Every structure is written in C-alpha cells, then in structure tokens.
C-alpha cells in the first residue's frame, strides 16, 4: 500500500467527519434509537437532507419490506439464527474519539498479526483498526489533485449522499433502475435505510485514467452497514472500480446489506473488483459479519461489458450474487470469483447471467475453497431469453476441499429458451493431491506454504483478472485465510 493511500485515507476520514457534522438538520440527535419504523426512515432522510422524491422512494421500499416478512430468503445453504431487525440500529453517528481505541496497543493482537502478514503500513493499520488518529493535513493536496484530474475529464466520483445533492437528475434517473426497491428482502431493506456509498459517472467516450477505489473516496468513513453504490458508464466509456480491502476491517455492525448497481450504456465497460475480508468470527464461529449483498449490472447498450471479479474470504455469512443483465446486443458479462471459507464460515455466492439481447456472451469462472468446518456453495443462474439469438455462456466451477469436515456445493440453474444459444457448464470437485504436496515439500516449501501455493495456482484464472496491485495482496490473503487448515 502506498503512502499516497495512507494520506488519502486519512484525509477522507477527516473530510468525512466534517461533512457529517457540516449540514444542519432539524433533528437534534445523532443516532436513531434501535428499531425500524417510518420515523427511522424520515430521520435518516432528514439527517442527510434528502429531497422529497428520495424520501418517498425510501418509504415505498419500507412499506414493501413490511409485506416481505416471510420473504427473507431461505433457499441459500446458510444457517444462522433469526435476525431481529427491530433490534438493529439504522443510523448512528460515527464513534467519537473517546470510544475508540487510543492506540494499537488496545487492538486485538490477532488482527495486528494479520495486518503484519499483509504488509500494511502502521498508519493504515491504525485507520483500519479504528484507532483515533489525527488526519495528516499536508496531504490534502493528494486527494485534491486526484479529484481535480477526474473533474477535468467530467468524471463524477463522490459519495452517493453528495451526488443526491449535486447531481440529483442522474441519481433519480438511475437509482433503483437495476435493482428495484422491491427486488428482494435485503435489497428492499437497503433501499429503505441505506446510509451512504459511492457514486460514479463516467461521461461519453471517457476512459477513466485510474482505478477508482474506495480508498480515495471522499466521505468513505463509516458508510455503515447499508451501503449503496451506483456506477454509470456512459456510451463508449471505461471505468475500473475497486471495492474493499484485503485487511480485515473492524466493524461494529454484524448485519450488512449492501446494494450495488452498475449501468453500462453502448460500448461502455465497467470492471468491478472486490476483495471482501470482513471479520469472519472466531474459530468457533462466534461473532462475524453477516453479509447479504445485492450486486447487479445492466449492460443497457450494444457492445457493453460488465465484469465482476471478487475475492471473498471474510464474513461469517456471505450471501452474494453479482449479476449481469445483458440487454444490449453483443453485450458481455463476466463473473470471476474466489470464495474461501475456513473454520465455521458459510458462503453462498455465485452469479446470474440474464441473456436478453442478441449475441450476448457470458463467462463464469468460480473457484470455491472450503476448509475447517465451513461450507462453500456456488449458486448461479444462466438464463437465455427467447430473443437472445446466438447467446453464449461458458461456466466453469471448481471446488477444492481441504480436510473432511467441510462441504463444497455447486448449484447451477440453467434456463435456455433459445435454440441458437449455446450454454455449457462444467464443474469439478477435488482435493489437493498428495503428489503435489510432496513435490513442493521436497523442494523445501513448508506444508502450509505449499497449500497456499497450490491454492493460488487453483485460483489463478480469477486472480489474473484483478488489477495488479490488488492481485498481489489477494494472493497473500489466500494464504492467510487458509492458515491452520492443514496439519
């Protein structure tokens, strides 16, 4: 991680706090009491100074959600105690410095060990662990230069709250256009109570010159458990967006339900990469984040392309299916995924590729690795609509089991309604061979390192889709995630 990152993050944290306290509302309190009703929604909306249409949209979502009581998904291969949604807190101001750890000495040493293995600089460790730090002001220029450069090209990159104020037409036009407020239990909840997230708009013909990362995002701090991200790539544009962080983030909220919407118009391309390493709980499965995410991209225009790449190693529960709606003729959807579960983690993840336009193509490469007492499930849907002439899909799902107390499952749904379409699905399940381990160890590589090496090889097709910087860290992460799984 570069010094630039450190600085930018420090700045963004500072700016975020100022921003939070910077606008006036008629509500005195900083936090909503636990529970969810119409007033909670109004409180959130007022806190954020939102226009009437957005409040109305939130209320509509909330009312729909109230009718969804029995629609909390049960089809995933996930087991967790019922969630009391009235017990959660839906809006809270950032923690004051007094509540945070004073220094790294007060932080869980296990967490620090992991940071060290990932090679994360000290200052960044403090940020991640939530230590109260002073922002470094002489670095303001870094973020400013960065913003200026994007602005020059007409690229909008800001928090969604800011976008609601500054670019209401764009937000109103696209928000909920890919994931409607009524889409599913978790997305509907998110629509009602989302607190913040990112907004990106890349104008016609512009190729975004850098990877946009949540690191650089202004007002990134405490986006909370209900993140909402909207990315629009106008005709002929290109953007690569990086979400998340290889380092395990400290987080107070156990329940996360994010929504990400991508829109790619004619000839546009969006590449969305995620590394998710939230707290997975301890070895016995206590604690850990519940991560229920709805991610969907629409290739609205001809020749549009959306590519999802994800490395999922964290969270106690992962429920996530980044999908592509291939509306435009010749549009392309890709999904590259690595999901690693260890100890008591459960991941049910995959994708949906909906072929609507002619000659649409999709490619799915999923690598699931299960160790410990965990369960890893690939669940995917490939649907070819009647008009998707010449559509093509190829799906490859490979699972690797480490030890005999874990489970690896593959649940693909294939629905084809066009005879000219060609849909192919292949899946395998295997373990690391004794021969491979012996060979590596004979060359002096320790067993745990050998496992990491072999697993990284197994994941290579996906790792190589990640932007360079991310890929290197992701490889380390693969190794760390599997620690203690052999021997």
């Amino acid at each position, binding site marked *: 991680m570069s010094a630039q990152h450190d600085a930018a993050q420090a700045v963004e944290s500072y700016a975020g706090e100022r921003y939070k306290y910077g606008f006036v509302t008629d509500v005195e309190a900083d936090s909503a009491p636990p529970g969810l009703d119409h007033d909670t929604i109004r409180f959130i909306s007022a806190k954020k100074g939102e226009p009437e249409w957005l409040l109305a949209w939130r209320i509509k979502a909330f009312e729909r959600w109230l009718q969804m009581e029995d629609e909390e998904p049960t089809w995933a291969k996930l087991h967790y105690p019922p969630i009391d949604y009235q017990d959660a807190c839906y809006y809270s101001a950032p923690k004051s410095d007094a509540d945070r750890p004073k220094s790294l000495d007060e932080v869980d040493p296990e967490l620090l060990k992991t940071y060290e293995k990932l090679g994360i600089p000290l200052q960044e460790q403090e940020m991640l662990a939530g230590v109260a730090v002073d922002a470094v002001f002489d670095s303001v220029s870094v973020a400013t230069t960065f913003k200026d450069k994007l602005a020059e090209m007409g690229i909008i990159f800001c928090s969604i709250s800011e976008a609601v104020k500054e670019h209401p037409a764009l937000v109103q036009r696209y928000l909920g256009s890919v994931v409607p407020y009524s889409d599913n239990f978790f997305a509907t909840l998110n629509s009602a109570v989302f607190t913040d997230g990112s907004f990106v708009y890349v104008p016609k013909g512009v190729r975004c010159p850098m990877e946009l990362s949540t690191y650089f995002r202004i007002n990134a701090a405490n986006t909370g458990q209900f993140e909402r991200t909207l990315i629009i790539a106008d005709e002929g544009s290109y953007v690569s967006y990086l979400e998340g962080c290889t380092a395990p983030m400290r987080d107070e909220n156990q329940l996360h339900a994010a929504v990400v919407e991508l829109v790619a118009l004619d000839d546009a391309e969006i590449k969305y990469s995620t590394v998710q390493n939230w707290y997975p709980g301890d070895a016995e499965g206590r604690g850990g984040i519940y991560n229920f995410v709805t991610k969907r991209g629409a290739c609205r225009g001809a020749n549009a392309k959306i590519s999802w790449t994800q490395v999922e190693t964290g969270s106690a529960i992962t429920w996530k299916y980044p999908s592509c709606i291939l509306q435009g003729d010749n549009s392309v959807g890709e999904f590259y995924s690595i999901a690693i579960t260890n100890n008591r983690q459960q991941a049910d993840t995959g994708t949906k590729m909906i072929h609507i336009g002619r000659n649409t193509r999709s490619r799915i490469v999923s690598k699931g690795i299960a160790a410990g007492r965990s369960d890893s499930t690939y669940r995917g849907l490939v649907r070819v609509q009647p008009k998707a002439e010449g559509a093509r899909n190829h799906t490859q799902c490979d699972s690797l089991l480490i030890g005999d107390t874990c489970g690896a499952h593959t649940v693909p749904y294939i629905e084809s309604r066009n005879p000219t379409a060609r849909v192919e699905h292949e899946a395998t399940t295997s373990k690391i*061979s*004794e*021969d*491979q381990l*012996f*060979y*590596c*160890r*004979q*060359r*002096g*590589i*320790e*067993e745990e*390192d050998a496992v990491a*090496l*072999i697993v*990284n*090889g*197994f*994941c*290579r*097709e996906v790792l190589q889709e990640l932007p360079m910087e991310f890929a290197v860290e992701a490889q380390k992460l693969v190794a760390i995630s599997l620690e203690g799984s052999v021997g």
Partner: protein
Amino acid sequence: MLTIENLHATVDGKPILNGLDLAVNAGEVHAVMGPNGSGKSTLAYVIAGREGYEVTAGSVTYRGADLLAMSIEERALSGVFLAFQYPVEIPGVGSATFLKTAVNAVRKHRGEKEYDAMEFLKLVKEKRTALGIDDGMMRRALNVGFSGGEKKRNEMLQMALLEPALAVLDETDSGLDIDALKVVASGINALRGPERSMLVITHYQRLLDHVVPDRVHVLAGGRIVRSGGRELALELEKSGYAGLGLEPSAAA
C-alpha cells in the same frame, strides 16, 4: 554424507526394502541399478520422506543426523534433493513462481538473503540457458503440458538452483532422447563437486557413459547384492540382470 544401514521399508504393508546397506561419501557419485521392482524408487522416496513409505527397521544417517526423524521439508532444506521420475503437474502455479518460492525457502533456512525478483530472474536465466530451457517454459504452469524431456530438464534446473548436498536422481534418464540425455548429463556433471554427493538411480547404463560414477551398486529384492566400480555397469549391460542371476521374478 549418507549412511544407510539395514534399511527395511514397506509400502501398503508389502516389504520392498529388505536390509539395504549403502554409504556415500562427500563428493562421490554412486549409481544404483536394478531390475524393475527391485526397490529403486522406494529407496529414493524413503530418503525424501514420502508418506506411505514406512521404514520398519534400520537407519539412514545424513551428515551425522537421523534423516528419518526429519520432515519432508526439513530434509529438503538441509540439502536433500530428489529429482522425480514423474514430476507432478501443478495447474496455475507458474514455474518461475515455484522456483523462487523454493529457492528462497532454502536460502532463508541457510541464513542467506532471499533473492528479489530481479536477482532471481538473472540467476534463473544463467542456469536455464545452460540447460537449454527457454523463457516460455518458465512462464508456463509448473510441469503442466511439459514434454518428458522438458520435465526432466526442469528438475535439473531446480537442482542447479537449490544447490543440494545430496541429490537423488530417480531415473532422470528415462524418456529422454540422446540429445536431451547429453544436456541433462552435462547439467549433472556441472554440479559435481567435493561437497556434493549424488545417488543416480537408473535402469540402463547409458546415462553412466556421460555421468561417470565412483561406485555402482546393484539393487535386487530390496538389498544391494553387488557393488563395484564403473565396470560393473558395463558388465551389467553385456549380460543383463539375468546374467547376474537376478531375474526380476527371482528378485521379488
């Protein structure tokens, strides 16, 4: 360097080695020859510590230490190298990545500085050119889709980089045409030195035309039945194992 005494080993409960004795001094190259099924590969695997090869009696002493008490990687780190007869394919793991990981593991163990990417690339280039290995091969996944000759040359490259004290070459000559054999043999010879011992396991004597051994041992029925100088290998070639009264069936 290596002293093996009264070694007995079983595989799946079946006795394969039945009282094998062998001593190799520093700087010596010993050839172990024998008919199929005589226990040659088992000897190599027992030295390397492969699971499933159970030592039921006897001892193996390596540089004064009990080799059998060491884990697979401890043996490798302390200088025992096995050139595999059938190197395994590891999909997705780049050859160069693998080499760097292994070399740095060994260097770290020796208390030497680990190579960075640039230093390592330079070193590999120097070593691989001598073995006729092109850069393309280094960029492919380890052993995946390699021809028989490429796999063996890759084993030699690893040996050159890891600089072992004791190299066990298990049928390194099998599956090689005469040109490849010469390349491999010159690679082996380049590594001969006063501090390095080699155990060359082979079925045929042709490799020994190029890698001239100090001693030749004949393995049959899980024991060394004859030992001699280079001439023993030539004698074997003339009369075959049968000529020594060592039909494979008699050996079993």
